């Protein structure tokens, strides 16, 4: 029960006025970002990284986590009222939520989404507080070979296992790994892939890549497709409160969504999309009124919304205990930690115990703030949707470039940003996933150094990776995860041929 003690200590950190303000700023920005189409939590954190460079590390990280949670809440509002989900985690919410809003039940849809998110985030954050110390106890015994195995799993699952096409996912990953090679090698002091450009000696900034791929790539893509047709949000009529029947139909989906979302979020590359789809399908099967699905069933909003918030908390488990990002937002948050020279991992819980537990405690506080922000104040957020999209995207680009030049005032950095923007645009156009590139850039150098440290300890014998059972198992899992999608695709094609 040490963790309870730490958690109480964390609360004393979290209720310091400065940290409360950081949490409040985080959830407000996060909700706004979730509501606005075109910007997700990953991009927002990436935009804020350079700006927060000089702020207090603990406070900034609390703010980033608030943005992450807030984005999950805010996304549901857009999905329900506009039918254009702000981010991929709320695509499923739009299915039933928008139908409910169209038939005049927008209020209860928003309410079940917000309360479900609250319940799920509450339970999942408790899960995080309980699970993290256990994982840390295992992870402190990890050698560099184990970390190498873990990173292999992360690479493969992020890019190959869950994407639409393993080939495209791996290509995106390779792009990130390639960028990760650039710069001076830490061990031998040699320059890799710098082509004589002095600005490249320090390597590629994660924020430049993330902002270029997400912000500029997205703006180019949306402009090129004319995806900015004005859409009017459906006005919320009547009360936002749920009837007794709504409560009765919602609470079980909330709990089931939490149970699905938390573990999947904690798995490498689980992300938030898969649990929302799973939850939706389960609720449709279990519902007492399955005929309502497709015309606005409240279970179809309650379950997926709980699932996506629970997965956000789940994502923090591997991020904090192992330093392993399992989603794009987590990858950018890892870059945020690194900006303050804090390396997430088991040692984080020893060296920065007050920071970690302060973060966990402020997640609880942020969750309460979000419930208040999203239920009584939902009308305010809907008004954000009245900002003309040309100004919104123009503002995003100004902020994106501002952050980049503020972090590194050089034209080379801006040229890199624009180049990454162009690449991001082409990747979107030809359906290549973005997240593997960011994960590759962050984890690539870490995997390289883990592997080299292992080989130094074994005096160059690569068998060290297989002699330790733990790393051997992880490498085996990575290989299976790499091969499985190709095999399964072959199987399904085989079945199609038979028909």
């Amino acid at each position, binding site marked *: 029960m040490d963790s309870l003690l730490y958690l109480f200590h964390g609360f004393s950190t979290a209720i310091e006025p400065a940290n409360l303000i950081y949490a409040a700023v985080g959830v407000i920005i996060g909700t706004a970002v979730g509501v606005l189409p075109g910007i997700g939590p990953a991009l927002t954190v990436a935009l804020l990284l350079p700006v927060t460079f000089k702020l207090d590390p603990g406070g900034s990280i609390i703010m980033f986590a608030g943005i992450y949670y807030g984005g999950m809440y805010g996304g549901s509002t857009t999905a329900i009222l506009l039918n254009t989900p702000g981010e991929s985690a709320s695509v499923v919410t739009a299915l039933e939520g928008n139908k409910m809003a169209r038939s005049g039940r927008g209020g209860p849809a928003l309410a079940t989404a917000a309360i479900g998110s609250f319940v799920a985030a509450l339970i999942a954050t408790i899960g995080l507080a309980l699970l993290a110390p256990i994982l840390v106890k295992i992870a402190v015994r990890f050698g560099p070979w184990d970390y190498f195995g873990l990173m292999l799993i992360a690479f493969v699952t992020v890019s190959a296992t869950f994407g639409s096409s393993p080939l495209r996912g791996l290509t995106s990953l*390779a792009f990130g790994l390639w960028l990760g090679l650039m710069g001076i090698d830490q061990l031998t002091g040699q320059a890799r892939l710098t082509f004589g450009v002095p600005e490249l000696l320090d390597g590629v900034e994660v924020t430049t890549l993330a902002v270029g791929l997400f912000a500029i790539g997205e703006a180019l893509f949306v402009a090129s497709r004319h995806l900015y047709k004005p859409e009017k949000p459906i006005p919320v009529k009547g009360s936002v409160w749920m009837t007794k029947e709504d409560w009765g139909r919602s609470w079980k989906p909330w709990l089931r969504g939490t149970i699905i979302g938390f573990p999947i979020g904690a798995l490498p590359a689980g992300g938030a999309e898969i649990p929302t789809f799973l939850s939706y399908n389960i609720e449709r099967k279990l519902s007492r009124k399955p005929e309502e699905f497709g015309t606005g069933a409240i279970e179809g909003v309650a379950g997926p919304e709980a699932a996506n918030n629970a997965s956000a908390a789940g994502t923090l488990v591997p991020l904090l205990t192992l330093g392993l990002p399992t989603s794009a937002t987590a990858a950018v948050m890892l870059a945020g930690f690194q900006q303050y020279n804090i390396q997430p991992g088991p040692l984080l819980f020893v060296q920065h115990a007050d920071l970690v537990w302060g973060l966990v405690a402020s997640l609880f506080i942020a969750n309460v703030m979000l419930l208040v922000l999203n239920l009584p104040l939902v009308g305010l957020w809907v008004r954000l949707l009245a900002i003309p999209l040309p100004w919104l995207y123009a503002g995003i*680009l*100004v902020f994106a470039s501002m952050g980049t030049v503020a972090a590194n005032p050089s034209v080379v950095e801006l040229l890199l940003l624009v180049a990454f923007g162009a690449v991001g645009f082409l990747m979107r156009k030809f*359906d290549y996933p973005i997240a593997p590139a960011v994960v590759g850039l962050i984890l690539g150098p870490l995997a390289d150094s883990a592997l080299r440290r292992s080989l130094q300890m074994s005096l160059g014998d690569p068998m060290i990776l297989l002699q330790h059972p733990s790393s051997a198992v992880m490498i085996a899992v990575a290989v299976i995860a790499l091969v499985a999608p190709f095999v399964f695709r072959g199987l399904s094609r085989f079945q199609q041929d038979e028909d």
Partner: protein
Amino acid sequence: MTIKISRIPNRPAAVVAVILFAVATITYWDASQMTVQATYGMSASAASYFVALLFAVLALGHIVSAFRPDEDESEAEGADWKAVGWIALALAGLIAAIWFGGGFILGSTLLFAFTARAFGRKALLKDICLGAVMSVLIFLLFNKLLTLALPLGPLERLF
């Protein structure tokens, strides 16, 4: 030659394959220029060789999928290149402003106004004014309050 290319069912994949091969070659060449060897284990060039190999394998994969006709569904949706051009102009304006010492406010104003134009706004003059006001506010907030070093031009030195 042109006839041959048009017979490839999935042309983007073929183009990607060529790019991947090029990157693989560059990476291999760069790694071969690295001379310092590690005493034990892997040298710094090993990771480069690995990534070069990965690129080569992925290029082969793209060639295979380029000749597989059933794989292109996401195609045929056109792009509004005029809008893309306006954003390119917006970014070029920013880079030029900073390159030639025009400063952050001028660059951001151009970026804002041209991007808004790309998204279909026609009131360019109004957007320039709005962009300028916003840039000044951002500059004051971040340069003075958060002491970030934004690029200075003649306008910024007035503050």
